[in-house]
């Protein structure tokens, strides 16, 4: 190939000076990294597709011709068919529709609890890590207490005193999970505030709030996103456990946990009724966990020197 070059008169003339060469360009963006990581990982691909389907399906639940709480004697324990893809439960309610409405509640609780958790945790973490000193010590001991509490037990106790409702559920779930997010963000903040670019910003006269918003917050988004996706999974799981114990969503509303609890009575005759919500919980939690792992590896600091 190289031999094809033919020498001519201009071969040995100076090249005209081009625009200065910028050199090798390393493009890297958060989303591209995440996408690349997901594409490279079959399991992650499955998790994302599954989550997209389940979330869309749950959002579109009202399109179902059935009322999730509407009773129908005739359809009692109807087997799976074209009209009732998952069959019907003991009151003849369409199980598929109920599963979708249950998913709405479970996902709503999961996402809301995660949101509240992340907001509280990040705020406390940044404050604690950035201010440091005695304030940090006090705040972290307080956080340690929450981490040390047997959360499930206390959630059960609290929920049995409070009136069961979705907001209570979200509040209780958040109350016991912000501490670990606070720990993560505090550690990140502590290391970030020593970085040269934060020092440079301080040297330029930037105030503490400016630094926290402009330099710390964008740089801890990565670990917070990981914590958030894992948080959704654990919130869905906790909600299911509480509902299963009868302390979560109250009848007649469905959540995956409460459906599981309802199916418990017929576990010997109609085990399939427990399988549907059980599998949905399993796959959803699993998918969010996989997503968390993928985010973690996509966001790992890469050497781009």
């Amino acid at each position, binding site marked *: 190939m190289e031999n094809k070059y033919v020498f001519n008169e201009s071969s040995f003339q100076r090249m005209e000076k081009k625009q200065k060469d910028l050199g090798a360009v390393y*493009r890297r963006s958060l989303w591209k990294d995440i996408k690349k990581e997901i594409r490279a990982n079959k399991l992650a691909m499955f998790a994302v597709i599954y989550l997209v389907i389940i979330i869309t399906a749950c959002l579109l639940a009202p399109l179902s011709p059935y009322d999730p709480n509407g009773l129908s004697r005739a359809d009692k324990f109807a087997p799976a068919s074209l009209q009732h893809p998952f069959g019907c439960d003991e009151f003849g309610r369409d199980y598929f529709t109920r599963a979708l409405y249950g998913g709405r509640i479970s996902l709503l609780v999961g996402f809301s609890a995660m949101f509240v958790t992340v907001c509280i945790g990040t705020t406390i973490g940044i404050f604690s890590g950035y201010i440091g000193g005695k304030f940090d010590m006090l705040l972290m001991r307080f956080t340690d207490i929450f981490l040390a509490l047997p959360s499930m037990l206390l959630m059960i106790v609290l929920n049995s005193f409070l009136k069961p409702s979705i907001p209570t559920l979200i509040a209780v779930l958040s109350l016991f999970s912000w501490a670990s997010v606070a720990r993560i963000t505090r550690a990140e903040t502590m290391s970030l505030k020593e970085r040269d670019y934060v020092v440079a910003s301080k040297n330029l006269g930037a105030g503490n709030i400016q630094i926290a918003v402009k330099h710390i917050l964008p740089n801890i988004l990565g670990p917070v996103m990981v914590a958030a996706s894992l948080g959704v999974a654990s919130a869905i799981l906790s909600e299911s456990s509480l509902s299963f114990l009868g302390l979560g969503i109250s009848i007649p509303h469905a959540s995956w946990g409460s459906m599981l609890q309802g199916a418990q009575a017929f576990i010997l005759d109609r085990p399939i009724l427990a399988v549907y919500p059980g599998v949905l919980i399993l796959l959803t939690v699993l998918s969010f966990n996989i997503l968390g792992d993928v985010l973690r590896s996509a966001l790992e600091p890469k050497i781009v020197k």
Partner: protein
Amino acid sequence: MNNRPIELEVTNLCKYFDAGKKRKLKAVDDVSFVIHKGETLGIVGESGCGKTTCGKTCIGMLPKTAGMVKYKGKDVHSMSKKERFDFTGKVQMIFQDPYASLDPHQKVYDIIAEGIRIHKLAKNQAEEERMVLELLDMVGLNAEHAMRNVHEFSGGQRQRIGIARALAVDPEFLFCDEPISALDVSIQAQIINLLMKLQKDRDLTMLFIAHDLSMVKHISDRIGVMYLGNMVELAPAAELYKKPLHPYTEALLSAVPIADPRASRERRKIMLTGDVPSPVNPPAGCRFSGRCKYVTEQCMKVRPELKEIEPGHFVACHLHK
């Protein structure tokens, strides 16, 4: 020598760190010097000699233990909030690591504009844009770079961005903390040329810290040599290299390899034996006494003062009185 006004005056500055068990790490111990307007003072020394700590303490990034640092007559360490803010508009810093010193989540434009925004130097968006583009041009980058992410730049280009950020507030004093040691040889020369040009164009006063003695000599007007927290010699650059008076300076200069095989062969090397003692428990008397071949009993007991031996040439050694 230099008739221009004094920009930075450091008198008997000490900076100790807590080393546990009630011991003190004496990073900077009784250091005094002045920097005149428009001058570049280089500080050299081996790792652990306290040169970076000294620089950071001088611009108020670290609290002092004792002594006094005055910038244009004002004590750097006892400024009011307002004074401190104004100070940040006049005194800026270039960092050693071009990777760690730029926020990876910001665009070049925002990094450079940060100082302009904080100090409200631009009346409107258009003026801010014009200022950023001028700065980019000044450091040898172009407008096309402004909207890029810092990931896309090489070490030398990042260092240029760092310089543009510091210049954005139109400072009068620049503290350069080993700005070239993380860069490749061919890039080092680019940055040095840029800094020298900027210094000339904008009449900057610079405190330049590095361990590369040849680069320091090239960029500095005067050079201070530090050893174990002490300033052992301070002299005009050319004179220091021609006529080093302190035995440590002499050894340090002779140890620098020269990129010329013949000259390198003909040079007389002074080999120092042993290692630098710990700054937690430095030798009494002269800090260099343990490794000095001219050591006398006096050196072990009394610490020599930094004295002006010849006009402008200061040395702290009992050999020179």
